[in-house]
């Protein structure tokens, strides 16, 4: 029996192993075992961990605001800071609806009492006293009204019953929100301001609804003190940017504004959200990463089983770094005032021969020749950057912004770095340098000027008959013929090379937006549509040698060029940020790069001598530099022609200088659009020098400046801060 059974079992097993179905069954058994093992792993081994994950599946990261860094001038004078205000926020806390309605009424009443603004999206649709809001009122908005009514109607049949604003209000009050009947219409409207928001946007347990964006600390204190009456309502500190400087600094400081979608896409990984403010211009933009700081985060979650909101983790906000500029606000103010006054003077001296009274804009840049620090950078016209800080609801400010960008005089343009100007005779010093360095001229070589010269059958004129003239005098008297010939001898390629070496037509590397400009050379000529088939001739070189033709440079390039002549041939990188001070007190001092151009000292001596001689010879320079020793400032004027002089437009006015001529400290460039004559700009430089040397005994007869650059208390404090 037993044996028979074993045999039959053997037979069966053999059959089974031969059967293909057996292997299919084996396969499915293995597969299902794998599933069971995985299930065991997920639920038993990893169960605890998944349980925690499940609990925090409703996770939200909330950001806490951090103040943006302050901006100071070099003496520690505050220019940009933040106003601390409070936001009133609300999250859902389970309470019955009648309690909530009562609470809403109390909150709105409190805000009204304190004279605070609060968000009221309902106002667009229904205003109080009950009437259609601005979005829905009027005959022409019939369709919008219909759409909105369709939106609030709970049943289709109710739509026809709502015709007037009062109908809609009553419908919301009685049917949709079911307010207690004892409320007056006014009270009901106040409740509805918040009910309407929670109804349309929902009220989260975690993500707050903002009731008011900007309330005073007094209101904040009252709300916090009465927190038992207002469950779920709390206040949060917010910071609003404030510019406390005058409008002369608007171009430098720039402004912050709401992030746009392109910036958001590029920066969303760096903690920006769609409502972030971001520096859009000037230092606010250049130093954005330093100024903005790091927002704090709070990761909150609602326990999926109990519904309780808990905090998972949080990080403290890090306030942004403070920025100290190289700018001296007093010098800046003086430079601006001088620029404005000079432009007014030029207009007043209108003679309709050379000066048509059309001067209207200009720029002045003051840099330290030793470091490249920009001490002042003023433009006229300018604008008020505070308009960018107004909330989007401030229609007046929004209109002002639109007007600013449409103004034909471009007050928003930072002329100092973005204004491109022909420079006229101020370029002659560069021609002199190139000629000496290339060895085509010696300092004492004379050229005969008979008031004109003919090159390639074209007559090029000079401003006078200089007869035999050598380089120093040619610079001082701005002899065109001398430089026509010198330029042609040097060749346009060499002129271009040396102009580039002195940073003309090149970006200077300053922190704020700037343009490179154009130099006279064949490439630039090719850019001009009218000259595309023109071949470069010596006649063009002659024009280029007196700074005419295509060249367009920025005022910052000009002052940097003057500084390089003054400091023995070092090209600075001009900069505006002197230092940043982090919240923890760490000081980072910024020093700009200096590049040795490689000019021989003798060469610069000749050019410097020419510029000093010009100041000594010029009656206007003597007058404007009154109080300073003779030849204290070395300068060169330029009167680039606009080509429209015959049609009643003045030439431009350009002036570069540095001082003191024996031991240079600062370089100044002045550009006045349609300023008629280069010498007209000397007045601005004179005022700047008086402001700079105000308390040193130089520039006598002027009131001493209390906190002139580098000597004031503020700067000492700042320096000790850096050293400490």
């Amino acid at each position, binding site marked *: 029996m037993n044996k028979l059974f074993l045999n039959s079992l053997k037979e069966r097993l053999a059959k089974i192993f031969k059967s293909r179905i057996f292997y*299919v069954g084996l396969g499915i058994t293995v*597969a299902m075992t794998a599933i069971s093992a995985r299930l065991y792993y*997920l639920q038993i081994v990893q*169960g605890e961990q998944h349980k925690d994950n499940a609990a925090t599946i409703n996770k939200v990261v909330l950001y806490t605001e951090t103040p943006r860094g302050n901006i100071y001038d070099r003496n520690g004078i505050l220019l940009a800071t933040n106003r601390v205000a409070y936001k009133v926020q609300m999250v859902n806390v389970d309470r019955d609806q009648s309690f909530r309605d009562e609470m809403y009424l109390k909150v709105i009443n409190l805000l009204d009492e304190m004279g605070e603004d609060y968000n009221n999206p309902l106002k667009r649709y229904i205003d109080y006293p009950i009437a259609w809001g601005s979005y829905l009122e009027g005959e022409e908005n019939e369709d919008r009204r219909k759409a909105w009514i369709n939106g609030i109607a709970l049943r289709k049949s109710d739509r026809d019953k709502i015709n007037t604003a009062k109908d809609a209000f009553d419908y919301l009050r009685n049917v949709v929100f079911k307010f207690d009947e004892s409320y007056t219409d006014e009270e009901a409207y106040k409740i509805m301001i918040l009910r309407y928001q929670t109804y349309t946007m929902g009220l989260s347990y975690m993500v707050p609804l903002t009731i008011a964006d900007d309330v005073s600390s007094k209101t904040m204190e009252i709300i916090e003190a009465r927190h038992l009456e207002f469950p779920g309502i709390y206040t949060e500190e917010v910071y609003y940017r404030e510019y406390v400087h005058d409008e002369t600094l608007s171009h430098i400081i720039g402004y912050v504004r709401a992030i746009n979608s392109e910036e958001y896409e590029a920066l969303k990984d760096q903690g920006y959200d769609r409502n972030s403010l971001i520096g859009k211009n000037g230092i606010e933009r250049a130093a954005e990463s330093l100024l903005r700081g790091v927002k704090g985060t709070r990761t909150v979650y609602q326990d999926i089983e109990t519904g309780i909101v808990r905090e998972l983790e949080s990080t403290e906000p890090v306030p942004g770094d403070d920025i100290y500029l190289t700018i001296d606000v007093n010098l800046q103010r003086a430079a601006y005032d001088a620029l404005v006054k000079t432009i007014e003077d030029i207009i007043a001296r209108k003679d309709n021969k050379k000066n048509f009274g059309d001067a209207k804009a200009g720029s002045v840049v003051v840099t330290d020749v030793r470091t490249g620090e920009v001490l002042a950078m003023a433009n006229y016209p300018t604008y008020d950057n505070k308009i960018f800080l107004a909330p989007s609801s401030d229609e007046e400010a929004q209109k002002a912004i639109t007007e600013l960008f449409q103004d034909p005089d471009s007050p928003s343009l930072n002329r100092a770095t973005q204004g491109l100007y022909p420079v006229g005779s101020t370029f002659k010093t560069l021609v002199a340098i190139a000629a000496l360095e290339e060895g085509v001229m010696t300092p004492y070589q004379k050229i005969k000027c008979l008031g004109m010269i003919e090159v390639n059958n074209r007559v090029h004129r000079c401003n006078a008959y200089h007869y035999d003239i050598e380089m120093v005098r040619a610079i001082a008297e701005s002899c065109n013929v001398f430089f026509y010939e010198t330029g042609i001898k040097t060749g346009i390629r060499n002129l271009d090379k040396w102009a580039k070496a002195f940073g003309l037509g090149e970006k200077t590397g300053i922190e704020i937006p700037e343009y490179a400009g154009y130099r006279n050379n064949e490439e630039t000529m090719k850019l001009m549509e009218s000259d595309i088939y023109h071949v470069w001739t010596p006649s063009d070189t002659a024009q280029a040698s007196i700074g005419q033709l295509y060249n367009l440079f920025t005022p910052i390039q000009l002052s940097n060029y003057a500084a390089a002549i003054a400091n023995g041939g070092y090209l600075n990188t001009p900069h505006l940020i002197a230092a940043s001070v982090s919240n923890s007190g760490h000081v980072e001092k910024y020093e700009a790069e200096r590049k040795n151009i490689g000019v021989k000292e003798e060469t610069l001596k000749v050019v410097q001598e020419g510029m000093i001689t010009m100041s000594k010879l010029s009656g206007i320079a003597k007058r404007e530099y009154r109080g300073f020793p003779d030849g204290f400032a070395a300068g060169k004027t330029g009167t680039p022609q606009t080509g429209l002089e015959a049609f009643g437009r003045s030439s431009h006015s350009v002036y570069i200088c540095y001082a003191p001529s024996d031991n240079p400290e600062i370089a100044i460039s002045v550009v006045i659009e349609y300023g008629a004559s280069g010498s007209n700009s000397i007045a601005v430089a004179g005022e700047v020098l008086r402001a700079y040397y105000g308390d040193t005994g130089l520039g006598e007869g002027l009131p001493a400046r209390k906190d002139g650059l580098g000597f004031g208390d503020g700067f000492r404090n700042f320096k000790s801060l850096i050293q400490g």
Partner: protein
Amino acid sequence: MRFSGIERSQRIDYFRKFDYLLMGVVLIITAIGLVFLHSAMYDMYADNGASAMTVQIAGVILGIIVALFFCFFDYTIFRNVCFPFYVFNLFVMLLVFTPIGIENYGSRSWIDLYVTTYQPSELMKIAMIILIAKYLERINENGMTLDSAIIILAGFFIPLGLVLLQKDLGMALVFIFIFLVMIFVGNVKLWQIGIIIGGGLAAVPFVWKFYLNGVKRDRFLSFLNPDKYQDYSLQLRRAMTAIGSGQLFGKGYMQGPLNRGRKIPVKMSDMIFAVICEEGGFIAGFAIVVLMTIMLLRMLQVSHRARDVFGSCIAAGIFAMFAFNIFENIGMNIGIMPITGLPLPFVSKGGSAMVTNFFSIGLLLSISLRNKKGMFIDD
């Protein structure tokens, strides 16, 4: 005439030979399924969940009737009607490309029957199984002939092509798996199977490049690296969190926070297993796996004991259909298979699928009733 099939065979004691085990397991699974579907759809009853539940229950009742009805039929009559049945289903499948076709989750594979929606590929599978079974039997009897081979291959590739055109990748995989299991069980020579598999593998690069591209591929691969494909793997991560958080005993029936909080996407169909495991824990999940395994092994036993190759192949095909659905569905819930959108048989929402599933069980019961006597068990 009506019962001619039965008359040809021996007299059958229906009550004694009825496959109580198979039908019993199926009914237990269906019951568990209904219970958890109620939980999964509870929060949707206000919308149209209630009517969906009605359709589901109606599907179960109708399905049981269909199964019992067909088990009394001799399955061999399908030998004669397999071609018309096949062609009819092909025709219905083409209807999805007409305006009555509906696109769901990216696959255009449903038609609108007003009361419910119907997925023609469901019944197409069975039509294909019967057709292939008939010709596999012929190959077993007469040896491999060219026309049999062509009919089998055409019978497989035509519906496969249509399913691919409907962009229903999961269903295409089911067709492929059915086909492979059937030719294996149908005693096709291993080298011939090797050629077919080789050809299939050769096509993989083309499918990869031209069919499975872009978003489809990312979605398909998201299970391998859920962190990399955050956008596509949400469904998977939620399902795994729900399953894992169920731990041993589960959160309790109707108590699953992720289920209640609507945090599990498509929880009434693709992800119903996650709901079961969240609320019933490892115990319920493992029970489902064991019941499904018993059901599948019993199907294989039916195939093994079938009276003829035709019946054996039909049973193997139906086994393959369920096996792949079950493994793929549970596998994608627990993160070991890509997400393709195959429902869990007898559990997921879907009235027409329920009827089709019971129809195939009816076929199996019919084969089981008419099996050879005493292969494993002397009864």
